[in-house]
């Protein structure tokens, strides 16, 4: 039978007008066979009621899914429907009493009018049954973690069986069947009520509301129970139409009585633990907030302040400190409570004496000396070490007013606070680093721009000289500088320099170097004098760590007279007749010595260039360029290339060097500027003519 009913249910479930159809079918059946006291027909009629109630309950649950009433609202709805139901029965009693006077006679031979009234009440009762069943179902499954489906299905099946068995009672006098089913059904219902989960999640206030509502509900149910003895015959009227409806109503009534009692007991038992649960919930919320803030806060002070606030909220202490340890192992303290400032010295002292015994564990320290320091009530200090990558990056310190042992769950909370804080702080550091990196890249861009402007775009065209140069800046701006100055009609000054350091500072020193040499070259003619003066000026502005290596050369384009002074720079290659001489006049770099030592050590050499002589100037970016095997390019390779291409123009020589250098270090990033200057003496053609 139940299988059949279930099948019926399923087949009608998908139809939109299923309940309209079913109700019409039910009414039709009843009206046609109204006065037939046939067991089979009334039984089939009641069977049709099952899918009607089922689909209506389903419909109500779907409404709840959309509207999402709170559990308290649902309980309140429970009350409203109960009251509404009582009102309907009370008022109708008033109207019906004259009609129902001779109920006994009417029942034996009912008229169509009585049949219709009975039908109306059947539908009202069915509505009540469906609504209460729907509310209970929703409440049972709210926040339910356990699988209560088994209990629920058993209860419903027992409810159906119990309701249907009322037929047997009427027709075959098997009343024990209904009572057995009723008892079993209520038993399973009690189990389900006991498994109610949603009460746990309520706040204290809400729980008290639930208790009040339960009592009101109970009062209403008891009231209507007392009244039911004197219902004026409705209870006898309904069976004319449907025996099962009345039975189901009684079942639901029993549920409505049991549920508030159990719910109330559950809620009362839950009250004391409410605070703990509320605390846990707020802990989780605070931690979530913290993790959300992590990515938003750029300022460390603000971030620390948020961390401290979160801890204060969770722990409920106003004495929370955060200490961060920087790379130089200095402690910096933070606290949101201004009054705590005087505690810092004490804390630092305490911490430094305890640092040795620190490991990853949270520990506490009894505070004894504090009484004399202030009127603070802190008796205990809980210390949470913040550890990242096995490195101590700070502590969280929590002052406690009472001396108590840390509970396991408190320890766990503190531990997760610690972990969250570490993530927050590390994230901040990483963010700072990436900002720093971006800043650095911008800075390098500026440096490259400066360098580009300082260096001439083109090699000069000078009579009798074939000049070419190449300048390849490194990503990090190496500080190379190359320039030339026309001293008079025939004399030219050339400078190749390398400012130590990289980036923006190198670029600015380079600018200074350019200014100094440009002005000095107008006043002085000897390379040595120029370098001495340049050292004097630059020593004042260069920082202690920086120096500049320079080669300054003057060339007379007419006579080929070359004067060279070298201040700590790479040697100059002089190619003559297939022979390379490394010119290395003594001299220390500018900025290395502020006294007479520079001048004493500086040597100036001079030579007369012959036709087709080459002078090659370079910076260490060439000789120190590396390949993947970390070998350096070196001077030998450089010399060999120069020798090989001696019959070519300066441009070709430079091109060859750069080509070979590129091939050599193709898999290794260029880490320094590369500067090359080649000067070929073409001889004084006028003289020859």
């Amino acid at each position: 039978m139940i299988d059949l009913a279930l099948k019926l249910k399923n087949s009608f479930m998908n139809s939109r007008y299923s309940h309209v159809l079913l109700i019409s079918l039910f009414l039709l059946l009843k009206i046609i066979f109204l006065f037939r006291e046939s067991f089979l027909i009334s039984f089939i009629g009641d069977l049709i009621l099952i899918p009607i109630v089922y689909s209506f309950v389903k419909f109500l649950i779907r409404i709840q899914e959309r509207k999402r009433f709170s559990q308290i609202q649902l309980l309140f709805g429970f009350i409203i429907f109960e009251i509404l139901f009582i009102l309907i029965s009370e008022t109708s009693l008033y109207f019906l009493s004259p009609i129902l006077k001779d109920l006994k006679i009417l029942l034996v031979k009912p008229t169509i009018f009585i049949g219709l009234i009975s039908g109306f009440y059947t539908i009202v009762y069915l509505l009540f049954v469906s609504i209460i069943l729907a509310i209970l179902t929703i409440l049972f499954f709210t926040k339910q973690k356990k699988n209560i489906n088994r209990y629920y299905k058993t209860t419903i099946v027992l409810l159906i069986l119990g309701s249907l068995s009322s037929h047997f009672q009427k027709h075959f006098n098997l009343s024990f069947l209904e009572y057995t089913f009723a008892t079993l059904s209520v038993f399973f219902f009690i189990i389900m009520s006991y498994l109610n989960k949603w009460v746990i999640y309520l706040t204290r206030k809400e729980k008290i509301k639930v208790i009040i509502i339960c009592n009101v509900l109970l009062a209403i149910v008891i009231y209507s129970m007392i009244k039911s003895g004197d219902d004026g015959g409705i209870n006898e009227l309904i069976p004319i139409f449907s025996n099962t409806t009345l039975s189901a109503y009684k079942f639901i009534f029993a549920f409505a009585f049991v549920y508030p009692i159990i719910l109330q007991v559950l809620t009362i038992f839950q009250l004391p633990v409410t605070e703990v649960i509320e605390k846990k919930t707020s802990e989780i919320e605070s931690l979530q907030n913290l993790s959300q803030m992590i990515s938003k806060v750029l300022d460390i002070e603000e971030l620390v302040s948020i961390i401290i606030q979160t801890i204060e909220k969770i722990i409920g202490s106003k004495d929370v400190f955060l200490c961060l340890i920087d790379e130089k192992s200095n402690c910096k303290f933070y606290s949101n409570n201004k009054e705590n400032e005087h505690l810092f010295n004490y804390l630092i002292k305490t911490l430094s004496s305890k640092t040795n015994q620190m490991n990853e564990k949270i520990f506490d320290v009894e505070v004894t000396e504090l009484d004399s320091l202030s009127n603070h009530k802190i008796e205990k200090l809980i210390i949470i070490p913040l550890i990242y990558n096995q490195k101590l990056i700070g502590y969280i310190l929590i002052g406690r007013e009472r001396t108590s042992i840390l509970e396991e769950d408190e320890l766990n909370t503190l531990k997760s606070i610690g972990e969250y804080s570490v993530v927050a702080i590390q994230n901040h550091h990483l963010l700072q680093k990436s900002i720093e990196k971006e800043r650095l890249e911008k800075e390098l861009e500026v440096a490259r721009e400066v360098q580009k402007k300082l260096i001439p775009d083109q090699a000069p065209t000078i009579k009798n000289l074939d000049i070419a140069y190449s300048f390849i800046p490194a990503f990090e701006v190496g500080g190379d500088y190359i320039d030339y100055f026309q001293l008079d009609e025939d004399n030219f000054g050339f400078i190749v320099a390398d400012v130590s350091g990289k980036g923006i500072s190198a670029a600015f020193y380079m600018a200074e170097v350019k200014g100094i040499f440009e002005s000095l070259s107008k006043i002085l003619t000897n390379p040595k004098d120029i370098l001495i003066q340049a050292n004097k000026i630059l020593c004042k502005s260069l920082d202690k760590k920086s120096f500049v290596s320079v080669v300054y050369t003057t060339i007379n384009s007419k006579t080929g007279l070359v004067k060279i002074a070298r201040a700590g720079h790479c040697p100059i290659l002089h190619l003559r007749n297939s022979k390379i001489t490394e010119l290395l006049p003594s001299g220390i770099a500018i900025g290395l010595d502020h006294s007479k030592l520079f001048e004493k050590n500086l040597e100036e050499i001079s030579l007369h260039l012959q036709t087709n002589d080459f002078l090659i100037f370079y910076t260490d970016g060439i000789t120190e360029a590396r390949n993947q095997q970390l070998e350096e390019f070196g001077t030998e390779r450089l010399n060999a290339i120069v020798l090989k291409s001696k019959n070519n123009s300066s441009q070709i020589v430079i091109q060859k060097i750069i080509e070979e250098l590129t091939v050599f270090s193709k898999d290794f990033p260029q880490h320094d500027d590369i500067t090359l200057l080649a000067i070929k003496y073409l001889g004084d053609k006028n003289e020859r003519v």
Partner: protein
Amino acid sequence: MNEFNLKQKSIEDINIIELKGYLDAHTAPKLEDAISNLVNTNQYKIIVNFSDLDYISSAGLGVFMAFIETVRNKGGDIKFSAMNEKIYKIFDLIGFPRIYEFYSTDEEAIQKFKSSEK
């Protein structure tokens, strides 16, 4: 890229810093910290051993320049020892040998410190 490492040891009041690997703009701060710690604790007799150093950039050279004046004013010195030819060439080009003392072993440098005390 080769790592940079430094080891420190002391013989009486003389501190020896042994450098290893690749000393450039990125690793120079480590050496700077080490020397700065010595200077801050009034230890001015410093020997820097270069036997395991593969490369030094201008930033590495700058570290010594930053401290030499202070150290010498306090009666100490920074002396270099056990430098291979390649590294020495870099120092030489720039002119360091005119200002700093170079020794082939730590012992020689220690002897020099001791004899200058007398």
